[in-house]
């Protein structure tokens, strides 16, 4: 799992470095008519993801301590948190209860800022989606007695890696460009 996560980290690293190179060569980064990124909203999504990392590792601790019911409940909460994150990202992109970035003028392919934003957050969102499916599969297996504490630990490595990567995505895609008013 660690080797897989390392290779995955390189793919995210490559995307963030590509964003950095494009950012350095394009002034202004935010093109006229493009919306600001919602840092407050994304901070809430970040908080949700941090909560799921906690519930995930507590699920493993519960499983390791033989508290099976608690472990299953915490895994379910983790999956729910991941799903909420995905709904939040869908809202951010397309809009559900408020206009999304696409509607507001951040269109893929029209600027380096838009393209890197959608590629990086989309790639991360895909990891979250796979993670939610992974958690649900492990949860079902655990309830049926086919999954061990060891497999929950491996799941935790993957899920916390998703959070690990999000720390850098949040900083490099949302926070750092906003210092220059992008």
């Amino acid at each position, binding site marked *: 799992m660690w080797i897989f996560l*390392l290779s995955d980290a390189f793919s995210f690293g490559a995307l963030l470095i590509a964003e950095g190179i494009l950012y350095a060569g394009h002034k202004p980064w935010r093109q006229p008519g493009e919306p600001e990124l919602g840092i*407050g909203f994304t901070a809430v999504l970040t908080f949700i993801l941090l909560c799921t990392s*906690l519930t995930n590792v507590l699920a493993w601790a519960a499983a*390791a301590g033989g508290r099976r019911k608690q472990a299953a409940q915490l895994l379910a909460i983790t999956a729910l948190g991941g799903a909420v994150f995905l709904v939040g990202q869908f809202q951010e992109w397309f809009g559900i209860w408020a206009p999304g970035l696409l509607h507001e003028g951040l269109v893929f392919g029209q600027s380096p800022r838009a393209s890197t934003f959608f590629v990086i957050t989309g790639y991360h969102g895909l990891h979250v989606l796979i993670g939610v499916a992974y958690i649900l599969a492990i949860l079902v297996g655990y309830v049926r007695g086919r999954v061990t504490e060891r497999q929950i630990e491996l799941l935790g490595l993957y899920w916390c890696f998703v*959070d690990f990567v999000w720390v850098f995505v949040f*900083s490099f895609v949302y926070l750092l460009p*906003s*210092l220059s008013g992008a």
Partner: protein
Amino acid sequence: MTDPEIGRARASSVGHVPAARERAPYLVAFAVLVALTLVEIGVVKSGGIPHRAAVVALIAIATAKAALIALFYMHLRYETRILKLTVLAPLVAPAVYGLLLMLDAAWRHMR
């Protein structure tokens, strides 16, 4: 490295480490992560911090948060030294490349 240590590295499980099953360190790490995220937001929203200092602060905070997640939630602090090095050493390469990129951008900006 001794044979048992190699065995543990292969298994890469911390289930045998009693401290890893305690909840308190995870809750403390969570509180610190939330606090650091709030500091990040404060750095961006305050507007009174010099640009370069804000950039350095945000990168340092992100690195600290990632380290907390890797050490506590991904259990790296309980792993063997060889696994720690296996994970951390390759990550130095993109970090150095990113640093060079920022120095290059800063140099171009100063010209």
